[in-house]
């Protein structure tokens, strides 16, 4: 802004701070409108140049543009970058064009027109029917049809009824709800108000984690502005419909994303799940009918009302309609948030949008659905994403996390990692979850440390069955998925760890050794100097040897060895070759004058 002033343009250019554009890998992002020129990885020192060249002289600053990794061509417009080009950003699209703290921006793109349509042109049952017809399924993980959930609440005799936004996004590596709430809070709010109208609720809650301070700030501002504009409060827009909404900040317990635990926590008690043989849409918050939907689910509602269910169902597969936002993280070139129609193949998401695996490595698996999801191997890459499709593959949609793993990932260790996460997040109430996971984690840790024994897989399978069948809530019931799916697709890795004490991916520290190939070592002393443990013996023209007793297996030497030598080797499941005798360690450099 200051720079605009300095260059005398502050009254001609509208500077807008928007929400996340999704292309995290290349942020911070600046888009110049109306041309749609997209600059990536912009730094403060680039600003004067952007203003002077692009805004004043209509010239493009080449170095800030996206470069196509294949053709080397520069791409000027955001919409032509492959990352964006292959997406369908129905829900997420406005994130880059509105200032989330300004309701006028949202109104300018047609915001709250769906609310007014619902209030004045439709009665509550018509709204409900439209959402049912759209077959909008819960984006938070379960995939339960939102319309049916709403209907159950509407028909429940008890009053009052509540509507709740679940913004307790706790999956590691997932941040689509955060970015919607931070970048376009009015969209979520509008969806919630429409839902409340359909159900007959006059009180709503937004349960958002404390760890999302900007989301908390923006949704609070949005509520205040919506109240001022008459979209919230008494007699909304003169329709006679009343609705208020409160923000509740969660303390960051993963299990509070589970619907009954979230409601218990909202009531001011310890966030523990409660038995759910009566659904919470009939008996939920304070024992009253409560509709809990995830942020993204609510964000779909205004579009369905505005454009109609028929428009919505043109996207997606038989069982899963509309689009889904995924957060693409891990070993992937384009980390970021992507929105695609349901039914897009994993391959398209990972390669066309995600740009594939960095560093020339091979793809190994994609973990979908958060910590309780599963790992899908390469042979299933043509799987179309959808609730039922992913579940059939032994994983799940979850909230839309996608962690891409390359060939250097040990699948046993992945299962161990997710189980460790879930063990820490279990509330500890029921035996299968608390105790079952304790034992599973112990066994998996032992396997990755080379202490696995015959029969471990069977014990794990037994525990997994108990967890899945007898746990109190979904956290426990799905907690075995990371183990079960990795066992299903990568059983040989488990067996290698247990039987041969070998880690095929060469990652489990206790099972690997670093070794310098005397044939290849050029005694350059790079690794020797860098070794933090002082475990490498050698000298100028003296072939280096790693002292296995001192080696901490940090991998520094492996990284440091120049690619033209590649003398440092990682080995697993075989003994380290004996060091070569002292007298053979000297390298006689031929052809070099002394």
């Amino acid at each position, binding site marked *: 802004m200051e720079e605009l002033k300095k260059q005398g343009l502050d009254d001609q250019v509208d500077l807008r701070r928007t929400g996340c554009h999704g292309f995290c890998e290349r942020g911070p992002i600046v888009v110049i409108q109306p041309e749609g020129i997209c600059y990536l990885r912009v730094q403060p020192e680039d600003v004067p140049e952007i203003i002077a060249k692009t805004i004043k002289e209509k010239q493009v600053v080449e170095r800030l543009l996206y470069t196509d990794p294949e053709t080397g061509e520069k791409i000027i417009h955001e919409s032509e970058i492959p990352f964006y080009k292959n997406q369908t950003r129905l829900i997420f699209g406005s994130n880059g064009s509105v200032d989330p703290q300004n309701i006028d921006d949202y109104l300018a793109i047609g915001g709250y027109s769906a609310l007014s349509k619902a209030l004045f042109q439709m009665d509550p049952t018509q709204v409900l029917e439209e959402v049912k017809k759209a077959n909008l399924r819960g984006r938070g993980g379960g995939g339960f049809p939102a319309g049916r959930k709403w209907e159950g609440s509407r028909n429940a005799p008890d009053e009052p009824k509540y509507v709740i936004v679940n913004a307790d996004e706790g999956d590691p590596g997932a941040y689509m709800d955060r970015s919607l709430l931070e970048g376009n809070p009015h969209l979520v709010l509008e969806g919630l108000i429409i839902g409340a109208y359909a159900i007959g609720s006059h009180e709503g809650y937004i349960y958002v984690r404390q760890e999302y301070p900007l989301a908390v700030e923006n949704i609070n501002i949005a509520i205040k502005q919506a109240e001022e504009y008459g979209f919230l409060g008494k007699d909304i827009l003169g329709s006679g419909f009343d609705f208020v909404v409160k923000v509740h900040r969660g303390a960051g317990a993963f299990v509070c994303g589970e619907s009954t635990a979230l409601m218990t926590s909202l009531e001011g008690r310890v966030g523990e799940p409660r038995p759910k043989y009566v659904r919470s849409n009939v008996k939920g918050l304070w024992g009253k009918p409560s509709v809990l939907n995830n942020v993204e689910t609510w964000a779909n509602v205004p579009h369905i009302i505005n454009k109609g269910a028929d428009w919505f169902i043109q996207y997606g597969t038989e069982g899963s309609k509309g689009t889904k936002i995924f957060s693409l993280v891990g070993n992937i070139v384009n980390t970021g948030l992507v929105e695609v129609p349901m039914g897009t193949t994993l391959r398209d998401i990972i390669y066309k949008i995600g740009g594939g695996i960095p560093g020339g490595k091979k793809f190994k698996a994609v973990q979908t659905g958060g910590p309780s999801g599963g790992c899908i191997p390469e042979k299933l890459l043509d799987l179309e994403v959808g609730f039922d499709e992913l579940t059939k593959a032994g994983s799940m949609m979850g909230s839309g996390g996608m962690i891409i793993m390359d060939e250097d990932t040990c699948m046993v260790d992945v299962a161990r990692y997710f189980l460790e996460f879930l063990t820490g*997040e279990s509330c500890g*109430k*029921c*035996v299968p979850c608390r*105790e079952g996971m304790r*034992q599973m984690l112990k066994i998996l840790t032992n396997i990755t440390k080379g202490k696995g024994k015959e029969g471990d897989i069977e*014990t794990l399978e037994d525990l997994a069955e108990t967890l899945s*069948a007898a746990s109190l809530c979904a956290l426990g019931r799905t907690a075995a998925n990371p183990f079960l799916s990795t066992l299903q697709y990568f059983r040989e890795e488990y067996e290698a760890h247990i039987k041969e004490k070998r880690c095929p991916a060469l990652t489990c520290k206790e099972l690997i050794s670093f070794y310098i190939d005397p044939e290849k070592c050029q005694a350059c002393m790079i690794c020797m100097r860098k070794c933090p443990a002082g475990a490498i013996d050698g000298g100028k023209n003296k072939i280096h040897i790693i002292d296995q007793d001192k080696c901490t297996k940090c991998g520094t030497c492996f990284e440091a060895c120049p690619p033209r030598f590649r003398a440092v080797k990682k080995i697993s499941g075989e003994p380290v070759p004996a060091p070569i005798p002292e007298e053979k360690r000297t390298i006689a450099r031929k052809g070099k004058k002394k």
Partner: protein
Amino acid sequence: MSEVVLNIDGKEVKAAEGMTILQAAQSAGIDIPTLCHHEKLEPYGACRICTVEVEMDGWTSLVASCLYPVKDGLVVRTRSEKVDRIRKVILELLLAHAPDSPALVALAEIYGADKDRFEKEASFCIHCGLCVRYCAEVKKKNAVGFVDRGMRREISFVPEIAAEECWKCKECFPLCPTSALQAAYALTMGLSTSQPFSGFEGD
């Protein structure tokens, strides 16, 4: 209250609407094992040992019988291969903490649970919550509660309340299926600096 008829282990059982499967079974003299259940307390559904198989409209699933409400036409199997296998694993998991608990040992016999299957971690408490819930629901004192979560969850007396209330009550002691509760109480009282140790004076 209207009456419903369900089938438990091949036997027609009449029950009142709103009852749980466990209550219906008990009224018909059918035994389902429990650990965290107590008739004076709200159903809790934590130990899962009362898991049974239910079938309704062709759908089979496993549910906690202490919580699942009876329905007309519901078919319940209190023992099946899968139910038994799950009870066995649950017992083995608990026996790692309290290998000598009489309640667990007796059930282990029935389900063939091996008390040495999992590495011992003798913390004794099996988190049935009977003491916590009895104190809260019946005595309304909240002198004992759960602290922390997941694997680190444990029972703990609140020294200030316990010093005032517990010595004259101790009604939770006989509820404990292991010896963990008394140990926790003695420890709290022993460590409590605000009050002199008044541990077992009331006995």
